[in-house]
């Protein structure tokens, strides 16, 4: 039991550290993705207006399009990293939820056993009370002890009920962890699908900005201005 307790403490430490580290990592990637999105949006939202003000062959026009294309790529890579991390997190959470489901099933059994033991304890106290009441008939000074034993009986009875409630709660919690594990597995699969979608999307963004750049070069060739 002592070894079990020690091991369980390590579990808590590892659990807390593992969850905290992973959470931080996903949160960091989320922030990076949001920042990259904002940066791309800032550059893309007025790209045509900025380029329109420049001469067709101005180097700044090409640079503006290239910077926006780069920002779009950075954005999509950051979002992909974030989605991949979220998928990994979902996988870890699903596995952990499964473990918690099993541990709650065990806890439910343990609490149920605990409740049964507590009821037996109440029965033992009732026997003690029976004997003590007889002794009180012979010795009135034992009344205080008798009253005290009755209050203990009440406390132990409360504990038995509390253990029975805990057993029910652990059983329900076990089922909930099972549902959560299944939902997290579905989420992981949905996120992995999105990673594939993002790969295709990245190609489309690159094609679009390449076409935008090609148009700028064609406009430059057509006018020959700004060289």
């Amino acid at each position, binding site marked *: 039991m002592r070894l079990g307790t020690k091991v369980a403490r390590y*579990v808590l430490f590892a659990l807390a550290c593992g969850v905290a580290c992973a959470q931080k990592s996903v949160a960091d990637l989320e922030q990076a993705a949001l920042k990259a999105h904002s940066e791309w949006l800032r550059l893309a939202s007025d790209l045509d207006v900025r380029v329109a003000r420049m001469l067709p062959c101005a180097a700044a026009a090409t640079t503006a399009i290239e910077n926006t294309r780069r920002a779009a790529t950075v954005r999509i890579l950051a979002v992909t990293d974030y989605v991949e991390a979220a998928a990994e997190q979902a996988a870890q959470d699903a596995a952990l939820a499964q473990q918690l489901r099993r541990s709650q099933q065990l806890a439910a059994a343990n609490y149920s056993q605990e409740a049964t033991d507590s009821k037996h304890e109440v029965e033992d106290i009732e026997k003690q009370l029976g004997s003590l009441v007889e*002794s009180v008939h012979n010795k009135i000074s034992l009344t205080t002890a008798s009253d005290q034993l009755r209050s203990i009986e009440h406390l132990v009875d409360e504990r038995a009920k509390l253990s029975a409630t805990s057993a029910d709660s652990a059983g329900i919690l076990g089922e909930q962890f099972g549902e959560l594990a299944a939902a997290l597995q579905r989420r992981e699969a949905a996120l992995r699908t999105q990673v594939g979608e993002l790969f295709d999307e990245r190609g489309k963004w690159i094609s679009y900005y390449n076409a935008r750049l090609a148009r700028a070069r064609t406009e430059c060739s057509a006018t020959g201005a700004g060289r």
Partner: protein
Amino acid sequence: MMRRLMRGLIFSVIAAAISFGQTPQDAYRVPYKAWRETAAGLEKDAAAPSGSFSSRTSSAAKKAEDYLSARLALFLNPGGPAEVLPWATRRGSHPEMLLGARPDTNQLLTATDVVLAKAITSLEGANDPAIRAVRAAMERERTALNALIESLSKGDKALGDLTDSSEEIDHLNAAVARKTQEGADARATAVQNIRTESVAWARYYSDLAEGAGSSAASVAAKE
């Protein structure tokens, strides 16, 4: 790599903890039996206590304390609801907010398409080869743009599934957090009850010895 290592560590340790903690009742059943054996007959003997009665009650009080300490350990055993609560109440990630046709992205691309379409129309019928080349470049750009817009909206179904899964998980997490909190509260109450019981049993054995007239003070008074 670190994540995989951490995950492996967590799961192997959890598995070990679960297997070690399978029969926690044994830890309190043995001291309970020892206590009950030591305390046997005390209530009956209290009516006519022998000289050793006081030491028997002291011994029973000590065994009761040992038993309740062991019982308390069951409820204080780490890995319970209170420790799981931070995980259950963790903030979920919502990458769907950055995926697909976001309103701001969609608006920008649609507006770009409209401007491009107008520009293409305005160059319609131009005979100048240079202008026609520009128009053709614009058309290629528009084709690429429309492919991008289509690609973003194509994933709407998958994105809808992802959004649904996020909502489902948020809902389940909330339910788990509520139940976990209930479990933690029940444990805290049980711990408090056992501590109260421990004090109550010590007082009971003292009262029993006193009532039987065999406590140290009573014996001294008799002598």
